[in-house]
Structure formats: C-alpha cells, structure tokens
C-alpha cells in the first residue's frame, strides 16, 4: 500500500476512528485502525466490537493495499504535522512497518496483519430511512443529558429511539431517563421509518453520532434492525450494536394531569437556580421552589454551610406550592429551553413535575422532586 493524502483531510478522517478506539484494551488489534486504500480513496476503520466506524477520504493511491496501525499514535502524528502538509503512507511488507512521511519528518509504525482486524458482521436492516442531520441532532442532543450511568439498569444507558404517535401524528421519538429525570423528544416521522423496531442506542454511540451531525445541510441515512443501528453520511458510516434490553414503559411516567402552571424565563430561572445552589451541600444540591401568586422564591438552606434566597417574577396563578429539586437537574432541563419561556406543570410536592418549552409538546421533560 502506498498513498498520499492532504494532512487536514487525513486528520479529520482519523479523528472519529481514534475516538471509537478504547484507551484500555486487552486485545491489541482493537487499538489499531484498519487502513484500506483502493482506487482514489482510502478508508479508516476502527471498532471496539460494539461500535464500528468507517471514514473515507479521497487520496492519491499509488499502490492499493491494507494494513493496521495504532489509531491513537497515527492520529497524534498527523495532528502534530504542519497544516497543509502532504502526507505519504507507505507500507513495507518486508519489515511489517508503515512509514509516514511529510516534509522532513518520517515515522515508522508497527503494524498488525489486516486479516486479524475484526470487521463487524453485516446484517439485514429491516428499516431504512433518511433524516436531516439537524433533526437527528435535536433529537439526541436534547435527550442525552438524561441517560443513566447506572450499570445495574443497563437498559437505561442509552437513548430509546422508536416510533410513536405524538399530538401531531406519527413521530420519530427519542427518550432517555435515569429514574430521576426523563426527556422525551419528538420529530415528524421521516418517510420510510414507519414500522421501525425501537432500539436503545448506547451512550457512546450517541456521542460518536453527534460528530456526524454538525453540518446543517447534511442528510443522514439511518438503518435499523433489532440488534444494530447504522448512521451514514457519504464519507462516514457508524454502525453500532444496540442495548439488548427492554426500555421501561415511560408513558406511565409522564404526568398528564398536572394543573399548576408556572411560566418563567428559562435563562433567568437557570441563573437564579445556579446562584442559590452555590451554598447547597455539595452532594444533595437541593433547591426549594416556593410558589405564590406570580412570585417564585428559590431558596437553599444547608445547616452546615449557609442559606440563600432569590425572588423571581413569574406567571403563576394556582394554589401556593413548595417543592424541592436537585439543582443540577433543574439546570439541565432549563438549559434545554432556547426559544420561549419554560413552562412547568406541577401536581404536588411529591409528584413528578413536567417541563416544556411554551406550549410545544415535541420536547417534554419530567423531573422527580426531592424532599426539602
């Protein structure tokens, strides 16, 4: 294999590959990236056995071939090369090394045979559709903060992507929860997605996917089966196993009959929560909301460290209410609101509270209160 490629193009292609590679590996080849050159294209493939990413880039291929080298090391080398450099990759079959040459720098990296590289089995996808990057970005970005890290509830360690019926018809829906807060985000169902099996997309895949979604104009080809999900752009293909488990019936969790309605400027609210939470105890971070006729008092009372109080003008016309929340959870859901006011719907101080943006039901959040 012998090829030359522009440094910037190479760096971009390697970035995703090296982030899939797990830092601590017991299987040496999993630390490597599989480089395959053919025609006028080179591809970089990396995997952790659960996720596989293939990144393609245009290159001048002199001699086609394939080999594997340390993903992190290759990425580091390329990153440190000067911008605009032309990088030559040459495989020397006799010495089992890959030579990387650019300008006056030359590196040679140990290789492992390409035959040993585990390539994820291709599978039949029962559902294929395309969706604008912008739509998927919103679905996953707004849901992912609620993903659980609890290993005992592994089926919550991802975003549940499935089809559902929303208020405006069929939707592609993403739900994540850790038992303390929940996010339910809807988008109009893309053509061809009907009948798609619901899948739990693991946290790491969600983070890797995010890198494909930056371009507003891009369209992502999505393929789903019971066990795998694939997201593809013309140059990058991300394939991932899905979490083998049943996502709990979240519909029961979303309160339908909460009537006490608070409307507040989300960013003012978040800032105030952040301010009063400064004195709350490091771990519990409890903040009390006291609501009365168009008035919200946020307060923290931590016997060991101190107390804080702040008043906000809000729209609230229901019975007086005192309710406590974890400040971190409040901040996280308030920061999801970017266009209109935040609307909170309460029942009692012990029941789950619902939050949405204005009257938009395409993104709703549920948060569990805390005793204060």
């Amino acid at each position, binding site marked *: 294999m012998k090829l030359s490629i522009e440094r910037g193009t190479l760096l971009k292609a390697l970035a995703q590959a090296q982030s899939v590679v797990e830092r601590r590996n017991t299987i040496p080849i999993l630390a490597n990236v599989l480089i395959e050159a053919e025609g006028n294209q080179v591809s970089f493939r990396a995997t952790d056995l659960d996720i596989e990413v293939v990144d393609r880039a245009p290159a001048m291929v002199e001699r086609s071939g394939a080999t594997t080298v340390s993903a992190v090391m290759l990425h580091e080398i390329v990153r440190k090369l000067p911008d605009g450099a032309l990088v030559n990759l040459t495989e020397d079959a006799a010495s089992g090394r890959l030579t990387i040459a650019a300008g006056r720098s030359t590196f040679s990296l140990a290789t492992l045979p390409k035959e040993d590289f585990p390539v994820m089995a291709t599978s039949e996808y029962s559902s294929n559709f395309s969706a604008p990057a912008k739509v998927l970005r919103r679905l996953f970005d707004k849901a992912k903060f609620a993903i659980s890290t609890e290993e005992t509830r592994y089926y919550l360690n991802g975003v549940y992507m499935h089809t559902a019926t929303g208020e405006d018809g069929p939707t592609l829906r993403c739900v994540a929860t850790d038992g*303390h807060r929940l996010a339910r985000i809807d988008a109009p169902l893309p053509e061809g997605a009907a009948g798609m099996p619901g899948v739990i997309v693991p946290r790491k895949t969600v983070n890797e996917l995010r890198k494909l979604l930056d371009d507003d104009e891009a369209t992502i080809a999505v393929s789903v089966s019971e066990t795998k999900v694939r997201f593809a752009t013309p140059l990058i293909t991300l394939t991932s196993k899905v979490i083998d488990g049943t996502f709990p019936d979240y519909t*029961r*969790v979303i309160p339908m009959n909460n009537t006490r309605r608070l409307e507040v400027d989300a960013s003012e609210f978040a800032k105030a929560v952040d301010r009063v939470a400064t004195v709350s105890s490091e*771990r519990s971070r409890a903040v009390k909301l006291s609501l009365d006729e168009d008035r919200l008092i946020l307060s923290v009372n931590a016997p060991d460290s101190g107390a804080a109080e702040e008043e906000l003008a809000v729209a609230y016309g229901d019975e007086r209410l005192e309710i*406590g929340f974890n400040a971190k959870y409040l901040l996280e859901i308030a920061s999801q609101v970017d266009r209109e006011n935040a609307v909170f719907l309460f029942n009692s101080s*012990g029941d789950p509270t619902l939050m949405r943006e204005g009257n938009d039901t395409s993104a709703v959040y549920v948060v*569990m209160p805390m*005793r204060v």
Partner: protein
Amino acid sequence: MPALCRDCLTSFAGGARCPACRSPRVLTHPELTSLSIAHMDCDAFYASVEKRDNPDLRDKPVIVGGGQRGVVSTACYLARIHGVRSAMPMFQALKLCPEAVVVKPRMAVYAEASRAIRAMMEALTPAVEPLSLDEAFLDLTGTERLHGAPPAVLLARLVRRMEEELGLTGSVGLSHNKFLAKIASDLDKPRGFSVIGRAETATFLTPHPVRIIWGVGTATQAALEAAGIRRIADLLRWDRADLVARFGHMGERLYHLARGEDHRRVNRDEKLKSISKETTFFEDTAEADILDGHLWRLSEQVADRAKAKGLAGRVVVLKLKRGDFQLISRRHSLNEPTQLTDRIYRAARALLDQAGARGPFRLIGVGIADLAPEAEADLSGDLLDPQAAKRAGAERAADAIRARFGRAAIIKGRALR
C-alpha cells in the same frame, strides 16, 4: 523510681514487693506517673464472661464460637495452650483441643458487660475510644488533679474494679500515644500492665518485627519483606520519601510509627466508615431463594443499624465468599444516600444477580459505605419505580411498630426464607 502495687494500689519509691501488702505485683517505671495514653484490652473476653456465668467451665478449655462451620470467636487461655486461636475454623480448633467446651456466643450478655466496663472507664475520662466490645483507648491527660492520682493508679484501680465487680480481667498498656499503648497492652497478657516510656521507645521498637505495627497484615508484611524490611530497625534505614514512593500512604505511616510517633487523638466517637453484616452458611449454597432470604435479613440488619446511628450510605456493597474461599466483592453507587432496607436490598440483589451463578457460596455479606447523615438520605423518588415511595412509607411504619412492640412484632414474609 516510682512504683505502684497493683493489688492494694499503694504508691511507693521502689522495691520488689509492696511495702504495704507484700504483693509481688509491683509496677516500676521511671515515667510511671507522667504517661497518660492507655489501651485496655479484656482477657479472652467472651470466654471469661462464660466462665464467670458458669463456674463449671472454670477449669475447662472453653471456646466461644458458632456451629460446626463457624470459626472461633474467643478461646480461653486454657484452650490457647492447645494452640486454639481466634478466627480459626472450629473443626481445626476441636482437632487441637478435643476436650474443649464450645459455647455459642451470647452477644447480648457480652454487650451488657462491655457497657458496664465502658461506664467505669467513662468515670475516669470522657476521652474513651472503644475499638470493640472488649478494648478501648483512654486518654487520661489532665485527670490527675480531678482524681487525685496519676493515670497509672487510675488504670490499676479500673482493672481491679472490673475483677471485683464484674469478675472479668483485663490488660493495660500505658504509654505516650495510641500506637505504643496498644502494643503495651499485649505484652503481658492476661492480667497485665505494661508501660512503654518516652525514653525507651526507640530501643523498645527497633528489634521487633514489622507486624507489631497495627495495620500491617499478611499482605503488607509480604510487600515489606520484598523490600527487605523485616524489623522496625530495617524501616528506620529508609528515607521517608522512599517509603512513600514505594508504599504510598502506608509508607508515610510506617515512617512515623517506626519512630514511635503517632499523633492520632483518642476519639470519643471515631467516625464510622461503613456498616456491614455478613453470615456464614451452615453448608455452601448456590440456591437463589436461600441467598435471597439472607440478603433481605442482612439488608434489614444493616438498615436497622444505620437508622439507630442516624446514618445512611451512598454505596451498597455485596460480599460473597465462594466454597473455595475466593472472595467476590461488588459495589454499587446510589444516586443519593439511603438507610432503607428496601433500597439496600434491591441494590444488593442487583449486584448478586450480576455476580452470576458462580456459587456455591459459604458466606454472604451486605454493607453500606460512604456514609452521610440521615438528613441527606432518601430525599428523592424514582420515576420508574412509583411504588418505591409506598414501600418506604411501609418500612417506616413497620419500624414504628417494632419500636413499640418489639422486633418480632412485624416482619416481611421474605425474611422467613
């Protein structure tokens, strides 16, 4: 040189026998009247209580411990002559001493005796730090004016009072810090009284093997041995930086302890770090139902203790010992501290399910760690488990009933498994 008769408590200027009662139990030490940190350790505590309560046992070797599968909790001095030691498996102990009388532990009685001893100690100083039912550190600094006698006299009076009023003997170590006091109490057991003064600290420590240091177990000992350190003298040759580099935090401790330096205070309430309970099965088991029953009862015991102490834990720990003695330990961090049986049990149960069917097991244990005050516990609910709040309410109600009508007034069916 100041001397003290341990029988009649007369202080005198020195001599082999007490000038007042002619007793040979005389304590002589140049620093006798100036040392004030003590460690008191009862002699074969459980066994001594049993002998006291049943005089027939007086001249027989007595082993306190549980069942065929259990281990020796305490062996009396007669049994120790045969080589029986604490924590030895019972079958081995009985092989060494077949004529031993094995008594099941009566913890309530021991706790009662322990309370009585503690009250005696607290009459001397508020700075009493119990290490277990039968041993404690005492800081008697500054009590001489109050009691009109130096600490050594007060301590001799304490053990004499324990013998007279409770029929139990203890050994005392007196020194200038906790580390040395603890070593001293072990020098002359039973009915001992040993003193390690400031002047002889270094000469006393140097020849001893490193395992004399509290906290140096088999593993540390092996690590030290690998570095060529067997005796305290070897430790003294090491630079502090080198010890820290090689042994980390432990190295720092070793450096100071080898020099007889220990600045820990005698703490009335040493902060509890974790609460745990475990049980060894009569025979190894892998049966899910049996394990589950134990898991519930242990969770309940842990929760009871946490509630009694006003504490809660952020981490739930499951401990399993397999038939081949392999130890499996699993931890789960909760989102917030808990003191509820229900939550401890559920977390432990999930850990057990994940540990897999790698039984059979001989021991199971449940604990909580990373403790927090109960005011921070169980404040938030679980969206996905709406029944959790109801179960928590039921548990609090059951606790109230038990507080009023006794422990057996209400139990879960699960506890009967």
